[in-house]
């Protein structure tokens, strides 16, 4: 495994107030943060808030970043996930026992609507998973982190990560049975 951090040099320039480096880092990380936030929270506006807050932490951390201790992307995922969990906790305090809305199971009249319907159903099925199973799938499938890195972000062993992934994907397969069974 390559141990060099591809973000380290950029981060050093960000710390010096290099405007081009700032833009490059935002271009590199903002789509990943938006993806992470939306898949964890199921809400684009909340994902934007998480992304903005995560970047505030990045700007604060950049001058103090110590190379070699942790990969920046791993640290950033941990920060963003903590922000997501703060929001999920607040939601649980507000919402008590309302079941999630169900997607319309009726057939879609054209392919565009069908694709949108699949997208909505997947987002709801993912949203219905236990948080840790959803986190494992988001990190490994959507964020494309390796198993060691994802396990490090989650603070679990690789074996525990694999178990969370397996259980999560089996639950998704059951929830989306009509889409995925052949």
């Amino acid at each position: 495994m390559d141990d060099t951090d591809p973000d380290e040099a950029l981060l050093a320039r960000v710390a010096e107030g290099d405007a081009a480096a700032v833009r490059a880092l935002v271009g590199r990380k903002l789509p990943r943060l938006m993806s992470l936030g939306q898949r964890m929270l199921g809400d684009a506006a909340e994902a934007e808030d998480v992304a903005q807050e995560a970047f505030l932490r990045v700007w604060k951390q950049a001058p103090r970043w110590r190379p070699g201790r942790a990969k920046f992307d791993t640290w950033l995922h941990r920060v963003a996930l903590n922000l997501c969990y703060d929001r999920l906790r607040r939601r649980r305090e507000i919402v008590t026992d309302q079941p999630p809305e169900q997607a319309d199971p009726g057939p879609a009249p054209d392919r565009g609507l069908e694709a949108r319907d699949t997208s909505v159903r997947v987002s709801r099925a993912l949203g219905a998973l236990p948080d840790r199973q959803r986190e494992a799938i988001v990190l490994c499938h959507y964020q494309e982190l390796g198993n060691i890195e994802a396990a490090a972000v989650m603070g679990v062993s690789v074996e525990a990560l694999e178990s969370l992934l397996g259980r999560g994907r089996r639950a998704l397969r059951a929830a989306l049975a009509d889409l995925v069974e052949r």
Partner: protein
Amino acid sequence: MGRGELAMTRERFESLAEAYGGDVSRWPAETREAAALLMAAEPDFTGAALGRAEVLDAALDAWRPAHAGSALLERILAAAPQARSRRWIDWLSPAALGAGLAAACVAGVVVGVEFSQQSSAAREVAVSNTLTAISSSLDLEEGA
């Protein structure tokens, strides 16, 4: 599991496909070699397991997140480190220090001339004004 899997059972192959999906290149590095051997030995079984996982992968990929709005981008960039901390460093550079010393000398000459030409009461006012001007000038540099 961390040292590489030399032989892989069908059950292990299925559980890896269930966990990491139908693309073996995204499985843990230490499992890929043994997986490739099993795929060569049992193409029907392994192909079916990967196929089932791929269908779920494709369904997951149907969910595409929204892109960040331009307003968000502007807010993030507006909060990014600017040249503020560097200006302090620039201000301390030899050239800036030289300019600062020159300004202080000019101020000293102005005070000296005014001292020599004005009454004591007027001198106090002139000193006060000059110090205020220097102080304001430094404040401006610090705040820049």
